[in-house]
Structures are given as C-alpha cells and as structure tokens.
C-alpha cells in the first residue's frame, strides 16, 4: 500500500513538474505532433516591396516568411509562435521610419530585421535603440551604422559583410590586378555608396599607390534611388577610357546601366572591364543579358557556397516560391535564425537577455560556416564571394561565377584597433561624427 502511495506521490510530483514546465518554459508538443505555444509574438520587417530595391525586398520578405515558418515548426522562440509582420517601405527612408514606429509602438514587435538601404537603417536604428528593440541587419551594411559615435546602437546587430569588409576587399583585389592603372568610379549618392567607395579607394591607394581614379570625385556619385538613364555615365566612361570601372550601383540601377551600356557598344564591358557589387537577383534580373567576364563581389551567392544545409534551404525556397534564393534571402534567413537561437537560449524575448545570447556567441550560417557576433560593433565575421561571371551551361537561367574565391570573414573583418578608434571618435573631421571615415583613423594612416 505504502508502495502504491509512494508511486502515486511520484506521479503527482511529475505531473506538477510537467505543468510548471508547460506554464513557464517552452512550447509543448502533443502526442498528435502539434505544437502548443504560449502565445504569438511578432517579428517586424519594413522592407522594399516596391521602389528601387523591390527586387531585393521581394526575396527578403519571402525568406523571412520561410525562416519564421521553420522556426515555428521547431517550437517557436522561447515558447512563442512567431508571426512575420511585413510592411512595404517603397525603398523610401521616411516610409521606413513610419513603418518602424508602427511596428514597435502599435504592433509591439519583439525584433526588427533591417531594411535594404543603409540610409533607411541609419534612420530606423535610433528608433529601435530608443525603444530597446533588437535590430538585425542582413542587407544594409555601412560600417558607420555600427561604428559612427552618434549612430552606435547597442541593440543593433549585423550579419552582413559591412562596407569596410566589401570596399577594402574590392580595393585590394583591383589594386593587385596587372595593367589596371586608370579606374572610373560610379556609385549611388547616399551613405552606402559613399562609405563603400571610400573604403575601396582607401584600400586601392594602399595596395597600389600609382592607381589613378580618372573621373573627379564629384562625379563618382549618381542620384539615388533610381537613375533611369545612364547615357551620361556611359558617355563619360567612353570619354575617359579607363582600364577598369568600379561600381557598387545595384538593383534597377545596375540593370539599367548594363543594358544601356551594351546598347551603346556590345563590347562595352570587354573594353571597360567592370568590378561591381552584385547579387543573384541582379544576375537573374538580366539573365542571359548579364555580361560574361564581369568581376563581381557578392555577399552570399548560393551557387558558390554549396553545403548540405544551404542545399536544403535552396530546395525548400525553390519548392515554395519557384525561384532561386538571392544573397539577401540567405542572409535574412540567417538573421531570423540568429535571433531565434538566441531567444531560445535566453528562454525569453526580453531584448537585453536575448542580446546577451547574441554578442560573443556563434551561429550556424547557411553560408556553410559558423559566424560569431563580436563585442563592440556587434558585427558578424561573415565572408564575401568574388569571381568572374561565366555561363551556367543551362543549369540556371542566369550566369554564375567561375574562378571563385570565398573570402573568410576573419580575413576581411575590420581590425579591432580601427573599430575602437572609430567608436571613440578619433576618425572624424573637426569632431563631426557625420564625417566618420576609417581612412582618417590613426592606425589606418600608420
């Protein structure tokens, strides 16, 4: 009898413990396999479904929906089902601000995923900071967003290679190319373009001091967003006859520029080889019209990063959307998974607790490696892919890269000394933080 009583007590205690766990802990899964959540929390995304960067926002919104579904199928985050709250910002800064306020103040989102352009993230980061909402950037990438003293936001995390990483890599690669002395620059006139171009030039001059930028600095930048006709730039390139064109124009601008340049001269990019930022979306947008032999640097091209986890993602993405995932899709999927893993480790959606599980921690990336979010600028040591456009031999409806080099995040990450100098305001003109430029840092000059 006492044995039966003892067993009954154990059973009661076990049942009570289960109840407590169910009430306080994670989601529970019933015997039928369905997951029971504590409730629903929102993940906010203000993104360019329309406007200049619509091509990117389209992929990002699809990827975030897929990532959220994957997270929910594995029990959600800290016991909550996650719902993607997606608003269109039309690639407009003011609209991004309006959306971010709505997402935080009205929709009570638990986390924000960053916008496409750095100008938008520059405007929305202070709102996230003021309201203590974690903002994970997977597309906007100016290093000023994480290092300029007046922009520093402890709730801002970057899982995309920043403009320092991209610009200096491109500058270093171009600087080492034989027979490239005269370079023409074309870039969008806003934070990202200026930041990346300055990084490119600073690195180029260090690697190859004799390299000459042939067009005056005031003509490097073109109106952004969207410059529908590129006659002037094309004409100027013909006029200067550079050995190489360096560009970080993207989306509709890159497509218009390439199309119009090829109409002026089908051999335009053979005469004036171009090194440019690109993405799967840009390749896919122009398809067979994308010139072969272009030297590209890309953030996460799926065809160059093969690994089992990415392969499964490509299949899942393609099955659902009948499209190939762009670089943005890969990185934004990583962004959602990073937050989800940290939230589950924290057992909470409290931003400070989640942040403790992000900074200094490592996360598995679809890109085939683990990245770590370092303390300080909270930048992930993610890599960059460089290569030359080549025919995909019918495998994809767009060119891919050959002669691929996957640069390692640790090799291109901004040195800690430089990061600390930037954040301490030692790399500015007249103590004006808006002039923050790593090329002004004492350690860079040295």
């Amino acid at each position: 009898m006492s044995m039966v009583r003892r067993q009954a007590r154990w059973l009661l205690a076990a049942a009570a413990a289960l109840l407590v766990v169910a009430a306080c802990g994670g989601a529970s899964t019933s015997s039928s396999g369905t997951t029971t959540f504590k409730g629903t929390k929102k993940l906010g995304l203000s993104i360019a479904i329309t406007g200049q960067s619509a091509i990117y926002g389209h992929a990002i919104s699809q990827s975030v929906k897929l990532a959220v579904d994957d997270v929910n199928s594995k029990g959600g985050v800290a016991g909550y089902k996650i719902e993607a709250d997606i608003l269109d910002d039309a690639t407009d800064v003011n609209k991004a601000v309006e959306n971010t306020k709505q997402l935080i103040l009205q929709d009570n989102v638990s986390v924000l995923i960053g916008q496409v352009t750095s100008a938008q993230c520059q405007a929305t980061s202070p709102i996230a900071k003021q309201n203590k909402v974690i903002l994970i950037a997977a597309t906007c990438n100016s290093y000023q967003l994480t290092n300029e003293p007046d922009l520093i936001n402890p709730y801002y995390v970057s899982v995309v290679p920043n403009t320092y990483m991209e610009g200096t890599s491109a500058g270093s690669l171009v600087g080492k190319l034989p027979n490239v002395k005269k370079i023409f620059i074309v870039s969008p006139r806003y934070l990202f373009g200026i930041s990346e171009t300055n990084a490119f030039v600073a690195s180029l001059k260090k690697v190859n001091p004799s390299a000459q930028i042939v067009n005056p600095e005031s003509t490097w930048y073109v109106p952004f967003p969207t410059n529908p006709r590129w006659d002037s730039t094309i004409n100027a390139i013909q006029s200067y006859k550079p050995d190489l064109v360096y560009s970080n124009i993207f989306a509709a601008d890159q497509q218009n520029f390439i199309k119009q340049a090829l109409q002026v001269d089908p051999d335009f990019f053979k005469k004036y080889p171009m090194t440019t930022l690109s993405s799967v979306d840009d390749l896919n947008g122009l398809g067979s019209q994308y010139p072969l032999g272009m030297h590209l640097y890309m953030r996460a091209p799926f065809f160059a990063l093969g690994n089992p986890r990415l392969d499964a993602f490509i299949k899942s993405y393609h099955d659902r959307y009948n499209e190939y995932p762009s670089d943005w899709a890969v990185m934004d999927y990583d962004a959602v998974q990073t937050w989800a893993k940290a939230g589950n480790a924290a057992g909470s959606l409290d931003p400070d607790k989640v942040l403790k599980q992000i900074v200094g921690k490592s996360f598995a990336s679809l890109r085939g490696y683990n990245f770590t979010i370092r303390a300080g600028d909270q930048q992930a040591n993610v890599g960059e892919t460089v290569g030359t456009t080549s025919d995909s031999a019918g495998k994809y409806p767009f060119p891919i890269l050959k002669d691929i080099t996957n640069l390692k995040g640790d090799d291109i990450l901004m040195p800690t000394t430089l990061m600390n100098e930037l954040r301490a305001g030692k790399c500015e003109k007249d103590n004006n933080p808006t002039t923050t430029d790593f090329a002004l840092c004492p350690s860079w000059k040295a």
Partner: protein
Amino acid sequence: MNPAQLLLFAIGGLSIAAYLFIVAAGLSLVFGALRVINMAHGSLYMIAAFVTVVVAEKLGAGLGFWTGLLVAVAVTGAVGALIEIFVLRRVYREEHLVQLLGTYALTLVIAGGVRLIFGSNYRTMRPPALFSGSLKMAGYSYSVYSFFMIGAAILIAVGVYLMLYRTALGRNIRAAVSDSDLLSASGIDVARLFTTVFVIGAGLAALGGVIVAPSQAVGLQMDTDILVLAFAISVIGGLGSILGSLVGSVLVGEVISFGLNSQYTNQFALAFVFIIMVGVLTIRPWGLFGAAEQ
C-alpha cells in the same frame, strides 16, 4: 568640353527627352481637354512596359517588340477607357484635389494589380535586331536604339500635331479645350470625345512604356519615376500644350545629361529640373507654352 563631347552629351539628352516627351504629351493632352491631372498616367506607362516584356519573352525580341507594341497599346487603351468611364466621369465636376485623390487611388490599385499579374521581379528584354548595335561618330559610340527612340518621339510629335490640327477629331478636342459646354450644345457627344482623348493619352503613355522597355529594367517603381519628370515637363511647357511638352522634354533631357556630366553640377542635376519648374511657375504659372486660365 570639346565639340565631340558636346555632341555626345546632347544626343544623350535627346534620348532622355524622347521617352519623356511621349509620356508627358499624353499627360498634357488629357489635362488640356479633360482638365484632369491624371496621376495614374505613370501606371499606364508601366502596364505597357510589362505587357511588352511578357510578349517579347514569348515571341523573342524582334517579333515580340512589334507585337508587344500593338498588344500593349491595345491593353493600355482598354484600361484607359475603363478608367475614364468608371472613375473620371464621376469626378470631372469635382475640385482638382478630388480628381488627384481619385487618380492617385488608381495608381495604388494598378500597382497592386501589376504585382499580382506580373510579379515583383524586374523584367528585361532586348531591343529588336533592327535597332541593336551602335554607330560611331566623332570618336564615340552611340546606341542605335537611342536614335530609334529619338526618331519615334519625332514621329509621334508629328502624328499628335496632325491629329490635333488636321482632323475633325483634333478640331473637336481643341474646341473642348476652349469650351466643352459650347461644344456639347453644338451636338457633339462630349462624353464620348473625352473617352477618346483619354484613350489617346493612355496610348501615348503606352508608347512611352513600350519604347523604354528594351533600354530599362521594367519594374514596379516605373510608374512614380516617370510621373514626377513628366509632371515637371508638363508644368514647364504648359499643361495642355503639346509644343510645351516637346520643349520641356528637350530642356529636361539636356539639363539631366549635361548636369550629370559636369563635376560642378553632378549632384544637382535632377534638382535643376525642379528649380526650372519653380522658376517657370513663379514667372509664368501657366508654363512656357500654356494658356492662362480665364
């Protein structure tokens, strides 16, 4: 700047002016006759560009372009007729603000529809073989397609002029611009005339969309991009004046081309367009070739 560069930038400006004129002429024609500022004009331009690309994808660049031209003008004209009959007829007697809101709402509806039908991705097509390749002049290469755009704009300008000044329809349109009530009293079916004018305006937007499709990425932002410049041109040239649209387009095209090429004006090139617009509005509010409202 040497003469060869001058020619280079001037032709670049004309190729910008070409497609801007075609679209602005439609906007101006509709305003002149119907007294409606059609915010959905850019949407019609976008529909035509998407239709052309889709037809070209099916039939190839050569046949696809010409077939696309016919299909796009027909589809856009039909959409234009529906807009005029079901929306604009209800707001003709309302204030301009109500008309603006009505046509703005249409831009949102059409943008959503285009996204649903054609998707969010950019589309692209090649120019027909006849207009591919380049010409070499004074040491520079020029796109043959740019000359095609300029030629098409000139043809369209002549066509619109002949239609307005050499046909009975044109006479009625000009009469409607002067006094639509008097025209109605003389037995002309003004409602039908207005539908016809709006369809012609939509057709011009469509021609602009078709012509631009092989040289630009066709995407969802096209509607607003073109509308801003077309509106500026119409204001500079004078809303309702086709000649004004022509002069305004050339002015805007050349300002953009030369402005972007000078290191001193590069960052203000687009701003100059709006500075000119403000200047014209200040000195001559009805535009360079427009007529002051009585």
